[in-house]
């Protein structure tokens, strides 16, 4: 039996999930569970429904049938969105959008609880920290559209991290980024996974990379979707304070 089933909570659970757009069935019966401190890689050809599945997980789409649960709560009733960071597929924002990197990163904190409230000094410090972790603090005052693709992706990752989410959901985070930056990026993810108590689900088109990291065999297939999984036991799960080991 898989060891993690016993010692970790369900973070995401998909039960008999089906989804169809107006005229097209994307998938009919997806069953999958993501446990605490898993790193799940999701692979599938173009149009397999990977993005659709992630959107179902974060409640942007409602399943045609079946149930999606986050941290044990059905998505519809889920309220603790700070626990989740989501980086959508290729942020196709307007490159002329007048927003600095800092403004974009701070927007990660604009949630229901922060409505009618200003960001505190502490909040802003956290945003600066996230920029430092992504090594883009020197770009804080640049317009987001002026950054390179890789730098933008780091900014969006920083935004998804400002609330120190327990679950990070990434949709093809490295598309359009040069190999060197991709390597850095995955090192960063690996570190976060191993040393910070985070759970990941990442869509990737890079089978080679997923294989070398998450193993060569998918743990589960649902139609055209292939799930790979690696569970972190690099650190005992009880370990609490690891924030000092910010990646270098």
């Amino acid at each position, binding site marked *: 039996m898989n060891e993690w089933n016993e010692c970790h909570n369900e973070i995401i659970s998909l039960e008999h999930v089906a989804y169809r757009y107006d005229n097209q069935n994307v998938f009919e019966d997806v069953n999958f569970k993501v446990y605490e401190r898993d790193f799940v890689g999701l692979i599938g050809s173009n149009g397999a429904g990977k993005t659709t599945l992630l959107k179902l997980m974060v409640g942007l789409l409602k399943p045609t049938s079946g149930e999606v649960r986050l941290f044990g709560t059905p998505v519809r009733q889920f309220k603790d969105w700070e626990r989740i960071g989501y980086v959508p597929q290729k942020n196709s924002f*307007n490159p002329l959008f007048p*927003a*600095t990197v800092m403004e974009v990163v701070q927007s*990660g904190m604009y949630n*229901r609880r922060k409505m009618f409230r200003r960001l505190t000094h502490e909040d802003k410090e956290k945003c600066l920290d996230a920029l430092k972790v992504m090594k883009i603090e020197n770009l804080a005052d640049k317009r987001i559209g002026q950054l390179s693709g890789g730098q933008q992706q780091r900014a969006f990752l920083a935004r998804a991290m400002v609330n120190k989410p327990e679950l990070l959901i990434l949709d093809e985070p490295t598309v359009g980024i040069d190999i060197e930056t991709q390597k850095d990026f995955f090192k960063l993810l690996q570190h976060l996974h191993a040393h910070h108590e985070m759970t990941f689900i990442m869509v990737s088109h890079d089978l080679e990379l997923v294989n070398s990291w998450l193993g060569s065999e998918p743990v589960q297939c649902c139609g055209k979707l292939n799930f790979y999984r690696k569970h972190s036991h690099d650190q005992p799960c009880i370990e609490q304070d690891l924030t000092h080991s910010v990646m270098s």
Partner: protein
Amino acid sequence: MLIDILTSQFFQRALLGGVLIGVTAPMLGIFLVLRRLSMIGDTLAHVTIAGVALGFLIGVYPIWAGLVFALIGSFAVEKLRKAYKTYAELSIAVIMSGGVALASLFFTLGRNFNANVNNYFFGSIYTLNMLDLAIVGMVTLIVIGFMMVFFKEMFLLSFDEDTAAVNGLPVRWFNLALTVLTALVISAAIKIVGALLVSALLTIPVAISLLIARSFKKAIIVSVLVSELAVIGGLIAAGVWNLAPGATIVLLLIAILIITMLVRKGIKV
């Protein structure tokens, strides 16, 4: 001569109305432009004119009737936008022609008020009365209040709506609020700059600020400053040289836009 004009009551009312709408229009316009809804101002203005004409026809204060039409029009745009997701401009074309058609229908029904309706087509800032000013003032308060309270949420919503939804923000509620505010601003602005030019005040200051502003806060500040410069400068110029005020304001805005494009390398903020 100049002093006479500047101190006359009708001019001061005009200036006050212009200054108020000069803050409100770009403040709202930036959210419309960034969400690719630049043309919605024009569309709703034409619908509003239909309402104004009906108001004259049935004896209701034209701005109130225009406001009701603007609200209906803005909801219709939203509905159509959902039905034709990938053809946002289609909803705008449909509603705009509907507005023009209704307006001309009402015109033919009541020929004797054509002159009055012209005030709303081309703007008639010198005929603002206290009720008009009160309406503009109220709308200004509502818009500024809303933006102060929900500034950060509106930022995220314009930057990327999906993330706003995943963060648990009531996205539909905000979209509805933006729609209603747009209708309010347009019906309040229409007597000041005229239906044909109202979208200029919503969009050109924003177009200028997009050229030079790096951050969102600065974009809003720049667009409001630019719009005030054009409104105040345009009104004074129009008063002194006896020009059409709405047109002068808009042409001044376009001049500022051109100058900004020419020298923008030097004025990044």
